[in-house]
């Protein structure tokens, strides 16, 4: 209790800590929001919750890691930042292809089944993927050095790692591209139509099965991008995907489906909340705060709906 009070006191004495927590929350949150948006996309369009989302992210991280290793051995003179940037489309393509295979072999068979079935099936995929990566890539922590320094302001009171800044920038750029695709391209139009009324979309001449496959692959590409960002902002480890799955899950629940603005806000909000909770209550409670907020928010939403005689369904 005293610890908590003194942490609060510290925030009051040194207001710049607030700024640091806020900025770091925003940066990290934009990466989480990107991953969550992919999950919301798949969930909204085809009613599949992809529990393997985190494993896809990690897979993207490995793709980026091995590409960068390979390329920088080939051209040792080039600056690492070039490879970091180039690794993003490579990882996106690799995971998109992998996702497509997962769709063709498993997801396409459970499309019209209960959401619950998709939770279990993709959980199975997550298990397979985790241990496969562990066997193939070993359990060693992998990290990509982006070569960017930490930016310090206000006499080292506010420190922002350059890699985080780059990661957030790339994440935001990806999100913008996806929003534009969804809004203006024929592909995006078809995805929106399919998610709103699949039967009617079929009547309009849209091949809905193809749209489902492409949506799942697009989510794979998003995970690939996120994975290569994670690889130089955080670390890559075969069993670490769960963190990203659970975070995305929390974000999507808080935001609801089908609204990208809400997903981004929830992603940023959750990360900021988490950073402050971690600072005030201690890092060991940070995760507890993240996951407790999900049932709490759902309960509140349920009470509101109950008063309107509706159900949270």
């Amino acid at each position, binding site marked *: 209790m005293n610890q908590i009070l003194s942490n609060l006191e510290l925030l009051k004495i040194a207001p710049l800590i607030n700024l640091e927590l806020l900025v770091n929350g925003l940066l990290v949150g934009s990466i989480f929001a990107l991953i969550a948006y992919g999950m919301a996309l798949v969930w909204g369009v085809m009613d599949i919750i992809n529990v393997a989302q985190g494993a896809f992210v990690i897979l993207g991280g490995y793709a980026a890691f091995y590409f960068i290793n390979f390329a920088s051995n080939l051209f040792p003179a080039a600056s690492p930042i070039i490879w970091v940037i180039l690794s993003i489309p490579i990882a996106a393509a690799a995971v998109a292809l992998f996702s497509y295979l997962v769709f063709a072999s498993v997801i396409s068979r459970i499309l019209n089944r209960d959401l619950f079935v998709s939770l*279990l*099936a993709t959980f199975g995929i997550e*298990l397979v993927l985790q*241990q496969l990566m562990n066997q193939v890539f070993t359990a060693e922590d992998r990290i990509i050095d982006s070569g960017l320094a930490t930016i310090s302001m206000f006499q080292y009171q506010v420190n922002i790692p350059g890699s985080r800044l780059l990661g957030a920038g790339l994440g935001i750029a990806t999100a913008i591209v996806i929003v534009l695709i969804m809004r203006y391209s024929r592909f995006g139009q078809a995805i929106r139509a399919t998610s709103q009324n699949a039967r009617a979309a079929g009547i309009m001449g849209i091949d809905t099965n193809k749209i489902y496959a492409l949506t799942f692959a697009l989510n794979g590409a998003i995970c690939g991008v996120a994975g290569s960002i994670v690889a130089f902002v955080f670390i890559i480890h075969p069993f670490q995907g769960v963190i990203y799955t659970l975070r995305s899950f929390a974000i999507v*629940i808080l935001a609801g489906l089908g609204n990208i603005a809400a997903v981004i806000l929830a992603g940023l909000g959750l990360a900021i909340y988490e950073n402050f909770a971690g600072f005030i209550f201690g890092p060991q409670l940070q995760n507890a705060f993240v996951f407790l907020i999900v049932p709490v928010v759902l309960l509140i939403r*349920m009470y509101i709906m109950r008063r309107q005689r509706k*159900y949270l369904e």
Partner: protein
Amino acid sequence: MRTWQTNIATLVILVFFLVAPFLFPNNMSQLSDLMIFILIALAWDMLGGQMGYNSFGNVLFFGIGMYIVASSEVILGGFKLAEYTSAMGGNQGSFILTPSQYLIGFGVGIALASIINFFLGLLIGSQFLQMRGHYFAITTLAIGVAAAEVARSIPIIGAGSGMNFPQPPDGVPLFHILYYMGLALVVLFFIFLSWLYKTRFGFIMNAIRDDEDKAESMGLPTASIKSTAWAISAFVFAYAGALYGSAKNFIDPSEVAFPFTTIGVWMILMAIMGGMGTIWGPIIGAIVFQIFKELFWTYLFGWQRVALGLLIVIIVVFFPDGIMGAFNNWKKRRNLQNTAKAKT
């Protein structure tokens, strides 16, 4: 429905389970795990299969039950819980229980765990069971995850480094006790469920599964039935958790107490594998699952999760009706053929 064949089969299985420890004395830990699995599969299916409320969060009661038993053993052994957990890093030697202390602590603990969780189940169930469908499943999943994280931050139960059970004193045949206590509740719970599913209570549970709005508009007491069913399953989960923790002799918050990625999924898998919504399904599912799991862990170690993951995918994608479902389909087909033959 029950014919003399099923009665005899039940009796044979019961006798087999009674003598199993003598047949496989080297596999006591697998056998006691099996009893625990049967219990949680039956208790999960009561909600998921019979009532249509697919929950991922029953591990909440599983873990709380475990912590209660461990604490009860420590406290009734005459020690302070805080001292015990803070010392458990290295020095276990000074916390020695006599056999009677150990058994009393265990017995009192398991009774307390079951009863406390029953009421906790009523309390939580009355709120969360107002949600429907996906949101219920998702919320319970979040509760399971959150429980592990909360437990991780409570120092008196060992926080993130977990909590040891007091060492079972020499001369206490722990696994035999756990196995027969598990078997005892399996038998009682099986008899109870066979009766329950034939009562009005059971029919209302099925009505809730099939169409809750209609059930409610008919004036059936859906809310209280749901909470009661949830509380009964919480009772069984706490009991099973107490046995499981004692068998492992160590509580890790997310690996043993609130293992939402292992037990939390296995319980569902076992029910699906055997056949959801049947009384024999979860039992058969638990037995088959335990055999698969042990085979994977013994012969495929290093790849065991790959094998398990593939098994999960194959079962939910291709065999959603489980073994009992396949059996019933086969019986139906045979009956059709028989009647067709009788006609010609």
